[in-house]
């Protein structure tokens, strides 16, 4: 990976804690100010070997939307498919302590967005973030870390992060080995907002990191949508509060898609539908009305239960439908 002189200066800037020195570099843009050039080169080589691409403010690829931030990140350490940075993106964020409801909503909405060609951006945390990444499918999602790329936090998302290195995209403004620090997480939220054209908050308490992301998004002038929840649920206090204050409400993925203009339903899906057998069409028609329990499908189709298990499992394997906990089935939007 070859970097221009400007890019190298940016990399050098990102590696120093010394504000004066950093400003001097910024103002002069003179690479000669860097004392140990060999060390800088070896750092860059090291990153390249690890598959890390450094996107700096001076790079072609740097997302222009980030420049609207008060303090745009000087560099982004990226690992994965950089092409995702060019696609329209929606951020889905929310609490780590989510409820089943929140998890479902995040998954379903993310899946729908990805199906319509959007990239889903989130923070690779537990709960809503993980559900959003998984819902969208790892090839359609960007994760923004509050720690270095080589640090895996939370532990439970290790596999997800590794998968996203391969097929999705993980980015961080911190040096690859930066450990976890609480205060970095709210700060990285500005990048989550900065990369997106709309923000969807699924579940959040009133005082939370999610609310910080919301503030960044509002500063940038993004459409911020909240998903309503039960009034007793602490996990929905923040979102319900925002709706009460006059924020945008999202009760279906289409509400959010309004921000992006019309996204047509793919012709492909229609074509697959036509090829289905009679029973399969009946199942799809049923599931388009909403989630259905296995027993209800058996009753409606008037099939033997054993045949019905075969039918549904087959459709699940082909990716037409999803099996949900509790023996429920849902239509797979993709």
């Amino acid at each position: 990976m070859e970097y221009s002189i400007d890019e190298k200066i940016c990399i050098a800037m990102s590696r120093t804690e010394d504000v004066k020195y950093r400003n001097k570099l910024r103002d002069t843009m003179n690479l000669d100010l860097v004392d140990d050039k060999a060390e800088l080169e070896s750092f860059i080589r090291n990153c390249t070997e690890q598959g890390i691409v450094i996107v700096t403010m001076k790079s072609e690829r740097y997302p222009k939307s980030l420049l609207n931030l008060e303090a745009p990140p000087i560099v982004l350490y990226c690992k994965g498919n950089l092409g995702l940075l060019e696609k329209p993106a929606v951020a889905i964020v929310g609490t780590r302590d989510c409820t089943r409801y929140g998890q479902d909503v995040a998954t379903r909405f993310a899946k729908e967005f990805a199906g319509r060609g959007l990239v889903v951006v989130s923070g690779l945390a537990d709960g809503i973030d993980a559900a959003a990444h998984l819902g969208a499918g790892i090839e359609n999602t960007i994760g923004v870390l509050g720690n270095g790329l080589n640090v895996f936090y939370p532990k439970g998302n290790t596999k997800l992060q590794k998968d996203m290195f391969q097929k999705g995209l993980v980015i961080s403004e911190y040096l690859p080995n930066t450990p976890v620090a609480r205060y970095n997480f709210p700060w990285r939220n500005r990048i989550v907002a900065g990369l997106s054209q709309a923000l969807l908050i699924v579940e959040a308490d009133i005082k939370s990191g999610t609310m910080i992301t919301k503030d960044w998004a509002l500063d940038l002038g993004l459409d911020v949508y909240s998903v309503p929840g039960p009034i007793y649920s602490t996990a929905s206090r923040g979102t319900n509060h925002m709706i009460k204050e006059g924020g945008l409400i999202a009760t279906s993925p289409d509400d959010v898609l309004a921000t992006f203009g019309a996204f047509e339903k793919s012709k492909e899906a229609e074509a697959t539908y036509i090829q289905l057998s009679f029973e399969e069409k009946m199942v799809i028609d049923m599931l388009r009305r909403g989630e259905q329990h296995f027993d209800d499908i058996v009753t409606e189709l008037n099939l033997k239960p054993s045949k019905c298990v075969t039918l549904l499992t087959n459709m699940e394997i082909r990716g037409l439908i999803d099996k949900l906990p509790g023996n429920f089935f849902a239509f797979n939007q993709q």
Partner: protein
Amino acid sequence: MLSKVKSFGVGGINGYVVDVEVDISPGLPRYLLVGLPDASVKESRERVDSAIRNSMFEFPNSKVIINLAPADTRKEGSLYDLPIAIGVLQSLGEIKDEEKAGEFAFVGELGLDGEIRRVNGILPILMSAKECGIKKVIIPKENEPEASFVHGVTVFTAKNLREIVDALNGEEGATLTRVNKKSFDEAKREDAHTVDIKFVRGQYTAKRALEIASAGGHNILLIGPPGSGKTMLAKCFPTILPDLTFEESLEVSKIHSVAGTLDPKRGMITTRPFRTPHHTASVVALAGGGKFSRPGEISLAHHGVLFLDEMPEYPRNSLEMLRQPLEDNTITIARSHATVQYPASFTLIASMNPCPCGNYGSRTQKCSCRRTEVSKYLAKLSGPLMDRIDMHIEVDSVTYDDLSQKGIGESSAEVKIRTSSARTAQLNRFKDSQNFSNAKMTEIDIKKHCALDPASEAILKNAFEKLKLSARAYSRILRVARTIADLEGEENINADHITEAVGYRSLDRKYGGN
């Protein structure tokens, strides 16, 4: 004077011959019992003493030595009372015809009045008698039902000690009662089940899965909110199980005979056992063993069902203990004083809630658990244990509409016809091996009997990729698919069978953490 009497001991679930030698010699009155007797055998002295005196004989006022041979095996239980008493009386010359007495073997506990009482383990004892060529055995009257199913041995019963001595001495009017033999078919009787699967409304997946489990002996996990009928479904399970074969029945009855859980009136177990130990049961109670080695719940469930209600409530070590017997179908209990082996080939039915509050995935109730709590709850069941469960079935609470539905489903008897014929197919398939069912197939058996055509192979490959099934699911799916094919009467497994089998592995997918 020296005398020898034949009797038996029980080790594990097998009997062996014990020679009771009694020597009475002049000297200070002493009573020595050797040959590793435990407390219950040592106590026989007082019972034998009283029983002999109360049967109008004299207990010797001199040195009595009793040896139980083989002398290096531990003897336990009260069944040596009778042979010891007979030996003593023979040494005293009260029993005149030694040769005639030598034809018999004796087992029984004595009451102080000389009455002969019931003992455990008669079935394995008589079977070992048959193997060792002992033709005549005298047993307690109360054990008669068990004895009537062992052919090739003449069994007599007696009510008290005096009766035996008189009969052996050929006194007028004194005879022993001979036990009439019965055939296995006579032992079978129409079982009056209090439940029937036709009364279970809805729950189509669960009912179908139970049918497969009963046909192939597959282990099954029922997951559902409280009140969804998991226990009801499990209770219906025995009603659709294929009948025990004679060999199976004999093995099961032997275990229960040793454990003393045999119905005294029936003598033989002809229906598959259904054991439901509570979750407070100790490891020893489940596995067997203890101070007086006794088969545990898993052995009492041999060839039947072990139902663990609310599985995560069982202590971790009790559950982990199940792993080895689930794999090997027997349990070997090693203790400092002895090592015993009990058969333990059972079908495991477990039930559990999907999360701490119980309502995860329910259509009528709301779950109030956090996602992390749900995965924590499920993590209580270890991977290796889950490896051994073939089907995970989600059961949901039934709505009022389901309950008020007109018409009822298939009855247990109808389902049983199908499961029985599927089981017959398996018995034919495995007639040359130790195996009785698809669930117990080894990897070699799977290679041999679960060949897949290219279409099924493709489906399975696809399923693994799309549904992210774990590797451990592979052979489980093949075993279940084999049973589904057997239920349909098909020689080969086809794509539909594979697909259906994949459908019964819920836990490998959405529940499994991230």
